[in-house]
């Protein structure tokens, strides 16, 4: 197991270099000189040249890229143009907010999505099944920024129950977390439903029923435990998506998370901040994906036994992991 985790972390390195190369070249080729932006219009050519020299902006592309990677590995993403603070410091001050928001959203999505999915599958084609399916379909078709704005109109402007922006009390979290969770909730519900429907038709469920087991135990103990794996996958990929999708929600609700930090950075041509932010999110996403694969292995005894037994099977399983 440890070897597998180690291998996966090693495999992340080339991917991260690729991510860095992409974001770095995009910011490199984007129009506008940072010097113009930071020093203002009154700056002379000499001032700009001095600024470029101090920040290493006069060097060729490859040299700058390699320097960036070497610094980034040591946790140095450069200095933010706007605040003159190290980029990593700004990222770390924003990241917990985004993480917390995503966690709340994910928790909400899983609890509600799984419950509705199970009910929907057990009562297939009933009113509640049809209703939740339509709602889930609408859920995946809702543009999140619009949903956020509509919720603000309803709960803040008309009803006045919840605050429309900021994050000072627990009430502030409700609207953004719910908005962020909608997509995942719908996805989780659909996955739970289809995977439960499959499990309910299995022989062991029929056996459990024949034994005279109560409906609740049959569903929760026999069917659900076997249906849980694909749900974990969906929840996991969804969580990784949340970190990116938070950019829009954070803008709608004026929350100072990493997504808003990156969007603001783009609007002010703050290249080091944007590069660092995207790279940081990509690393976080890859680590989350790794964590999900590990959880997956722990939950499924079939996969777990592959890791703990002979070497031959181990190789097979790691190959399988790269395929998926």
């Amino acid at each position, binding site marked *: 197991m440890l070897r597998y985790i180690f291998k996966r972390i090693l495999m992340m390195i080339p991917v991260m270099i690729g991510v860095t190369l992409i974001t770095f070249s995009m910011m490199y080729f984007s129009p506008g000189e940072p010097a113009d932006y930071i020093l203002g219009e009154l700056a002379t050519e000499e001032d700009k040249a001095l600024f470029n020299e101090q920040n290493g902006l006069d060097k060729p592309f490859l040299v700058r890229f390699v320097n960036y990677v070497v610094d980034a590995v040591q946790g140095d993403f450069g200095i933010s143009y706007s605040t003159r603070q190290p980029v990593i410091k700004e990222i770390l001050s924003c990241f917990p907010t985004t993480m917390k928001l995503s966690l709340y959203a994910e928790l909400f999505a899983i609890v509600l999505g799984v419950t509705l999915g199970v009910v929907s599958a057990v009562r297939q084609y009933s009113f509640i099944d049809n209703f939740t399916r339509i709602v889930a379909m609408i859920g995946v078709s*809702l543009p999140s920024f619009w949903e956020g704005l509509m919720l603000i109109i309803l709960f803040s402007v008309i009803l006045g129950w919840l605050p429309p922006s900021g994050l000072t009390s627990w009430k502030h979290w409700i609207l953004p977390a719910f908005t962020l969770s909608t997509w995942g909730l719908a996805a989780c519900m659909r996955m739970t439903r289809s995977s439960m429907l499959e499990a309910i038709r299995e022989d062991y469920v029929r056996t459990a029923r024949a034994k005279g087991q109560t409906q609740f135990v049959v569903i929760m103990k026999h069917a659900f435990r076997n249906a849980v794996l694909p749900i974990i996958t969906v929840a996991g990929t969804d969580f990784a998506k949340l970190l990116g999708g938070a950019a829009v929600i954070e803008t709608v609700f004026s929350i100072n998370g990493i997504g808003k930090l990156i969007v603001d950075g783009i609007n002010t041509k703050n290249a080091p901040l944007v590069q660092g932010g995207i790279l940081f999110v990509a690393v976080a996403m890859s680590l989350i994906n790794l964590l999900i694969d590990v959880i997956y292995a722990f939950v499924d005894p079939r996969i777990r036994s592959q890791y703990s037994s002979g070497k031959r099977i181990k190789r097979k399983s790691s190959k399988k992991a790269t395929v998926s």
Partner: protein
Amino acid sequence: MLMLSTKQDASLSQDTISIGGHGQAKEIIGRFLRNRAAVFGMVVVLFLLFCAIFPQALTQYDPIEQNLRDRFAAPSAEHFFGTDEYGRDIFSRVIYGCRTSMEIGLISVAISCIIGVVIGAIAGFYGGITDNLFMRFIDVLMAIPNTLLGISIVAALGNSIPNLIIALSIGSIAGYARVVRVSVLSTKGTEYVEAAYATGASDFRIIFKYILPNCLAPIIVQATMSVATTIMAATGLSFLGLGVPAPTPEWGAMASSSRAYIRDYWWLVTFPGLAIMTTAFSFNLFGDGLRDALDPKLKS
């Protein structure tokens, strides 16, 4: 005599095959038409396409012309969806916005689909180093959240519709490449592909004539569904101010510019959003129905 009979057999079996092919298409269409939700989705999609192609047939107002005397008019018989902060008719902006969104959605899906299918087919077919190289590239694309990738590409290239299309296409290549690669891997070993090799067919011919047609179903479903996600992503980027530039009617940009007025004038934000939702919803219904019709095994 013997030769004659084999010839007859061959022509006979060819007939049955062509009839079989026909029957399968008929069966798929039949299954699709029985699914009321999917047919509803398809009808709405067709209507939206009509709006996109002939917007002038549905509205008499110019979507860009400002009329400052008529600012913030509430929805009425004259202005179905009311007017915005510049007195522009929102109904006509929503109808013309359909053209913008469809254009972005369909073109970007076409681009990403073609590139993704080619990458996935080559990676799956040749395997080895080629596969490894292409898939690591795909891994890199997957490691950046789509929204952030889109934001930074538009920021680097500048705000315009073509750049937005490029940004959205790059983000969704990975999905197609992975789907196609897996189905190519599973089709590669089949007997008809071996038979094609035996007849001396080139790699190109084998991939495009024998392997890909058998992987079409998941590609079609993925493409239909991603029109919905692409249109939603495009409106999201425009909402952040990183998409379609100002006077062009676009749903996300409309919602964004009227954000400041949501306290007093609800119709400014509501209708563009409803349009996005309807579009995404109908494409999703359509795609869901297609999946069930093309592959009844997947039906849940």
